[in-house]
């Protein structure tokens, strides 16, 4: 228990202390929200789909959590390069506990980042239709954070240089974001895209957030929860396995 707590606390401390990182990581969601939200707003309205900002905000929240979560897994690379990873790996504790502590820490950081973005969305004019469903929205945020921190840890355990990280960003993380329905509704899109979105865990996270915040859902909130829980178990298992295999 102490192991999990102390490594969780480490992630939080690192996050809270790097103010530059917090500010920098808010730039992207802000840009998406303002440029796309207001830029595509009129077109979306004319197509009869209502207010685009309302539709987009849950997608941007999910995006923030996705990027922060994956990044916290990639932080393993920094730990490897600055050596702290070795310190953890020679400690007399099971690697599984180390991995759990790190993952919970990373997920908490992602959740905090998501909360800040919710506040920004509210400032930009986003209004949830049902405030009593906020706890449900937070549940979805937690699930998204766990799924992608576990994925990030699995990736971070395998990678050993920064070039690999670029490849992961371009060929995995960006597609996960763009093909998730964060930016457009999943109804009426080509079949191929529909299949890809259906296989993408983030689609269910975005959909769940929309169900909670604006009362619109493609898959249904229960399906979303079930899929996210299932995927998180698989990825946690996979991440733990990769992590336990790290050689230094």
């Amino acid at each position: 228990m102490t192991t999990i707590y102390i490594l969780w606390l480490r992630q939080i401390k690192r996050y809270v202390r790097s103010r530059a990182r917090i500010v920098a990581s808010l730039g992207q969601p802000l840009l998406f929200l303002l440029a796309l939200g207001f830029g595509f707003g009129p077109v979306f309205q004319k197509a009869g789909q209502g207010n685009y900002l309302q539709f987009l905000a849950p997608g941007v929240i999910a995006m923030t959590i996705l990027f922060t979560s994956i990044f916290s897994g990639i932080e393993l690379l920094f730990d490897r390069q600055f050596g702290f990873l070795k310190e953890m790996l020679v400690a007399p504790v099971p690697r599984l506990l180390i991995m759990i502590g790190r993952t919970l820490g990373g997920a908490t950081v992602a959740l905090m980042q998501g909360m800040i973005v919710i506040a920004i969305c509210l400032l930009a004019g986003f209004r949830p239709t049902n405030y009593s469903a906020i706890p449900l929205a937070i549940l979805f945020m937690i699930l998204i954070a766990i799924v992608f921190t576990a994925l990030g840890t699995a990736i971070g355990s395998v990678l050993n240089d920064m070039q690999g990280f670029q490849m992961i960003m371009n060929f995995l993380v960006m597609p996960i974001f763009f093909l998730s329905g964060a930016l457009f509704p999943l109804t009426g899109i080509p079949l191929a895209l529909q299949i890809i979105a259906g296989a993408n865990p983030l689609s269910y996270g975005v959909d769940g957030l929309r169900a909670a915040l604006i009362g619109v859902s493609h898959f249904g909130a229960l399906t979303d929860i079930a899929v996210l829980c299932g995927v998180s178990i698989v990825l946690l298992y996979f991440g733990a396995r990769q992590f336990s295999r790290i050689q230094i």
Partner: protein
Amino acid sequence: MIRVEHLTKTYGEIHAVRDISFDVPAGEIFAFLGPNGAGKTTTIKMLTTLLRPTSGKVEIDGLDPVTHNDAVRKRFGIVFQDPSLDDELTAAENLDIHGALYGVPKRVRTERSEMLLRLFELWERRNDAVKKFSGGMRRRLEIARAMLHTPKILFLDEPTLGLDPQTRNQLWTHVKKLNEEEGMTVFLTTHYMEEADRVAHRIAIIDHGTIVALGTPAELKKQTNSETLEQAFLALTGSTVREEGADSNDQLRNMAKMFRRPR
């Protein structure tokens, strides 16, 4: 305290360590010397549970690192060749995490942290982030950290690399003191022969994965008819320069240097 019998590690065709045997009794300072790529770090990794031996036997305080890895890990402290602190955290926090990972109770770890930070003259800086520390301060902090859980053995893998003579001198004085006062066994590697000559009780010289000589500094000098340990070392291992390929971690470290802010 450390017993090694016919230890071998092979990577495919390459024999990193071949059939080495030695014994380090409790309370001894044992130096493990050799040119780059001779197998020093590979041996340390096998002794400290980070690597499985291909064949042969290792005993740390009577326990096998492969089958009892957590028990073995509690018994040693290690200072790695390259830094292993969390730069973003303070000196005190680095010690606290270590203590927690090694199951040292909160009260004991606060007390022992204070004692060690004072001993290594870091107490005034305990609440500063490690990234503000100089190379020597980081090394001292790493040794303090390795001592926090009162290990029976201290492994030091080239701890003085890149430090100035003053800092090196001070560091070895501390290590000797810990060895004498707490009776701790020390296993060290270094490229500075005069350091090994000064602090080590016994020295093993390893080359191409085998131990080519073992004895007290005086014995090694006598065996090779040399004035200094450096001459003895060169007589035993020859004077060809060894090449070592950079692994991906070295490359990563070079990348990190590029992105680091100058301070």
